[in-house]
């Protein structure tokens, strides 16, 4: 290998050891900011503070017929690594291939289910066919189908590994599932990564207990259309999306609730102005959009009529803990 290439890879390896930014964010929060004459004060946590106040006092329209009382939002993030109400992430990989950084964390449909998502790419790059590593955990899930998985040992614990089908163009894909403790199932899934099975096993065998990480649900639902229940959710920052929650369907399709950091362009058609959460929003063919706090936008879309989406949006509580800047984003 040439000296120049070695230098590049050495710097990359050193950069992979970068800290996660918790301390820097805490210092920014504590640092005094002299107000300027040109712009209003915008500290790092101004968004979260405003959202927390709004969520506690619920100044928006709350329907008297809502089906459930929104849960009180978690306390503002301080130095507590696991905020109240957050789902613990009890395990973390101690090794990942070079160049992978964490982009999203999420919750599954069942209580206690969590997942983490890394990709080898520039942090704000969107689309394409990235190399991806995901890790999931939670209560015991169904055993993998016997004919698709082979037994493996993960640090003395039973596990199973399945490889992607080359015939289906998934030969750089592998999944490892194992049970590190009674009632706990973990899985690692690698996509488009060379030597996928070796990489997946190395990641799995590097996994170690953690007592600090967590993930919070970005939204708490008040009223939901009939038969629809809260499903999975994600937080992070991918292509401008800060958080998203997908409801699980009852008799029909589910709905998607998103919080994004950019103005949502109106879909084709004739957007109809509506009042949502005390603000002017728009409704257009199953899509409801409204600006919320400090440059973020709420978007709800799915097969429901305008009144249903407005009622859902009005009773929705945005969790400031899940939608503030995430210190783990872009780190390993």
């Amino acid at each position: 290998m040439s000296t120049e290439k070695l230098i590049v890879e050495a710097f990359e390896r050193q950069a992979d050891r970068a800290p996660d930014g918790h301390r820097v964010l805490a210092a920014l929060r504590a640092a005094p900011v002299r107000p300027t004459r040109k712009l209003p004060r915008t500290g790092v946590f101004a968004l979260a503070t405003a959202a927390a106040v709004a969520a506690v006092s619920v100044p928006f329209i709350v329907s008297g017929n809502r089906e459930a009382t929104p849960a009180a939002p978690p306390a503002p993030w301080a130095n507590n690594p696991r905020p109240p109400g957050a789902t613990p992430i009890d395990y973390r990989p101690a090794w990942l291939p070079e160049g992978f950084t964490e982009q999203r964390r999420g919750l599954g449909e069942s209580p206690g289910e969590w997942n983490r998502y890394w990709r080898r790419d520039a942090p704000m790059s969107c689309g394409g066919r990235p190399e991806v590593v995901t890790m999931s955990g939670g209560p015991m899930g169904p055993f993998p189908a016997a004919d698709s998985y082979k037994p493996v040992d993960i640090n003395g614990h039973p596990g199973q590994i399945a490889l992607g089908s080359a015939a289906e163009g998934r030969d750089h894909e592998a999944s490892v599932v194992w049970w590190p403790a009674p009632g706990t199932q973990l899985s690692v899934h690698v996509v488009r990564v060379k030597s996928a099975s070796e990489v997946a096993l190395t990641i799995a065998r590097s996994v170690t207990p953690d007592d600090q990480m967590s993930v919070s649900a970005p939204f708490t639902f008040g009223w939901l259309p009939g038969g629809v229940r809260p499903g999975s959710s994600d937080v992070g920052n991918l292509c401008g999306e800060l958080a998203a929650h997908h409801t699980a369907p009852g008799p029909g399709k589910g709905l998607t609730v998103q919080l994004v950091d950019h103005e949502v362009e109106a879909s084709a058609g004739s957007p109809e102005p509506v009042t949502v959460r005390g603000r002017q929003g728009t409704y257009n063919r199953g899509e409801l959009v409204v600006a919320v706090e400090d440059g973020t936008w709420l978007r709800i879309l799915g097969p429901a009529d305008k009144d249903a989406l407005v009622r859902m949006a009005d009773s929705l509580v945005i969790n400031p803990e899940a939608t503030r800047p995430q210190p783990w984003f872009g780190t390993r």
Partner: protein
Amino acid sequence: MHALAEEGVRSVSFDQFVTARLPAFLRYATALACDPHLAEDVVQDVLIKVQRRWARISTLDVPETYVRRMITNEYLSWRRRKSSSTVSLPPDELTRASYALADPSGQYDERDEMLARLAALPRKQRAVLALRYYCGLSDVEIADTLGCSHGTVRGHASRALAALRQTAANDVTPTVREIG
């Protein structure tokens, strides 16, 4: 190459800027300083200054480039302040000792060896190499970042590369020499 992403100009708040850029700044500073803790201190001090001046910095064409310059120069001046007031193991010694432990796979390979050699370089030579090989900047852009001439940049780079190659040659094992 890993130049901090150069996006089109749009109005962003400081918290949005930090959300998007903090991981990249920490990665660059860690590569530059060869010390994650020092990198964190440098980035923290810089971003506190940036927060105070955000009204002006946010109007620049590419704020990221300006902040990267601040991080680079903060690090270069930081070393001068710290070296006169602290007594500790030389950073390159600590770094060499830690590399074998840092890799969970237990393989202290040629990349770690190169990293140890980079850590032993004088700070400005390493800064030039980090800007060239980690950030992918041209020598003209490096000169602008460091506030020096293009010729000075080339001089630092040349001496650094010569030192890295010489160190590699000196690391050849006696067994290889005997065979040669």
